[in-house]
């Protein structure tokens, strides 16, 4: 909370962004405390990692200092205060924290908790619900990510302007940093793959793995320069990879439809329904992972490849 206030008061946007990253990390810790390991994982990777990098690279393109406020803040404070008071009043009727009789825990959740191990055959219920029971939603969300990535690319160009960053950053001279990053990157990529394919059993899954994999490349780009990163992963491939990810996800659905089952019913994939579920979840998570990875990375390329225009 204090961090949030500090972030609002500060006029140096650079500091604001860093504080926002700290705030995300604290949120992740809170999620961990509330038994939401998968969510904490995602928040730590996305909020504290990727969002900060993206905000910073767009600050590079705009400017660092905020103009002093010109409005009188009292009116907006009044609006906020009244809304906040109404919301606090509403919470007085809300179920207490950890109350087992709360309406949230009464509907479909007990079914998921009791049946998921038998029906989908994987211990991580979050992954089971994500990829199997609510596969339609996840497909929709993957498409949203894909569309958002395309929107960024349309707004900023595909990052193939030819003339990339000319100014060499001070980071090029940092020998220690380079060695450390060289050691870290394989570990990051390996860890991302572990998260991707072990998501059925422990915390993790396609969303987190995609983000972590992209983080590895972003780190490489920042330390070794944009040309080197693009030699490894050309910007032109990324939209195609993203489309491939969506295609894998949708293809699984269409395949199960062709096999005479409803869209995204994974039991069509194999004679044994539980085995089919397993295979389906694995493929779908792979599709999600590929899409998220390539979209995050191409957004970063688009933002960092653009030169500052005064």
């Amino acid at each position, binding site marked *: *909370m204090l961090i*949030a206030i500090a972030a*609002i008061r500060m006029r140096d*946007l650079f500091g*604001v962004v860093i504080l*926002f990253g700290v*705030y995300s990390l604290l949120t992740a810790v809170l*999620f961990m405390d*509330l*038994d*939401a*390991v*998968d*969510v904490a994982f*995602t*928040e730590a990777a*996305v*909020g504290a990692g990727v*969002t900060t990098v993206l*905000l910073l690279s*767009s600050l590079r*393109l*705009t*400017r660092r200092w*905020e103009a002093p*406020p010109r*409005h009188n*803040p009292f009116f*907006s404070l009044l*609006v*906020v*205060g009244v809304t*906040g008071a109404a*919301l606090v009043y509403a*919470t007085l009727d809300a179920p*207490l*924290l*950890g109350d*087992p009789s709360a309406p*949230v825990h009464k509907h479909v*959740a007990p079914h998921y*908790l009791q049946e998921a191990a038998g029906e989908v055959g994987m*211990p991580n*219920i*979050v992954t089971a619900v994500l990829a199997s029971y*609510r596969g339609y939603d996840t497909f929709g*969300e993957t498409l*949203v990510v894909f569309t*958002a990535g395309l929107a*960024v690319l349309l*707004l*900023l160009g595909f990052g193939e302007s030819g003339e990339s960053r000319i100014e060499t950053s001070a980071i090029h001279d940092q020998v220690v940093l380079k060695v450390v990053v060289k050691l870290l990157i394989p570990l990051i990529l390996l860890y991302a793959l572990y998260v991707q394919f072990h998501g059925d059993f*422990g*915390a993790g*899954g396609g*969303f987190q793995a995609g*983000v972590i994999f992209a983080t590895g490349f972003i780190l490489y780009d920042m330390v070794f320069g944009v040309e080197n990163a693009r030699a490894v992963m050309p910007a032109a491939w990324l939209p195609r990879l993203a489309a491939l990810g969506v295609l894998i996800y949708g293809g699984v659905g269409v395949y199960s439809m062709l096999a005479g089952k409803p869209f995204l019913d994974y039991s069509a994939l194999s004679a044994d329904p539980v085995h089919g579920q397993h295979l389906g979840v694995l493929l779908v998570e792979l599709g999600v992972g590929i899409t998220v990875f390539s979209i995050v990375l191409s*957004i970063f390329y688009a933002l960092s490849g*653009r030169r500052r*225009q005064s």
Partner: protein
Amino acid sequence: MNEIAGLFNYWVVVFLMMAGFYVVISQGNLVKKLVGLGLFQASVFILYITMGNLSGGRAPIVTEGVFIYSNPLPHVLILTAIVVGVATTAVGLALIVRIHEAYGSVEEDEIHALDMADDDTRLQEGAGQEESSE
């Protein structure tokens, strides 16, 4: 006392939500507005996860000897929401970058003033053309 502890999380959520809301409506800088939206978004995440928590529960990964798990459904919703959130934030940032290229500023007031000035000149030009055609 029990009630206060049980509702404290909701109050944190309300506070953070209002903080984000305040930034969005009162600050003029577009980048800061996006950070405010992020604050608001994170408060909603905390709200959902709070609702999914169960006293004495464990993380929803089936292990032997554990019978109470927290509710996995809010976790799934928020997990995807976080990733979608970063994608939409990126769209916002891209728009800001384009706005900065077009106007040379990311302050709402300045952009507004530039827009008004632009409209005025265009109106004058239009009036001048009408006169010349007559």
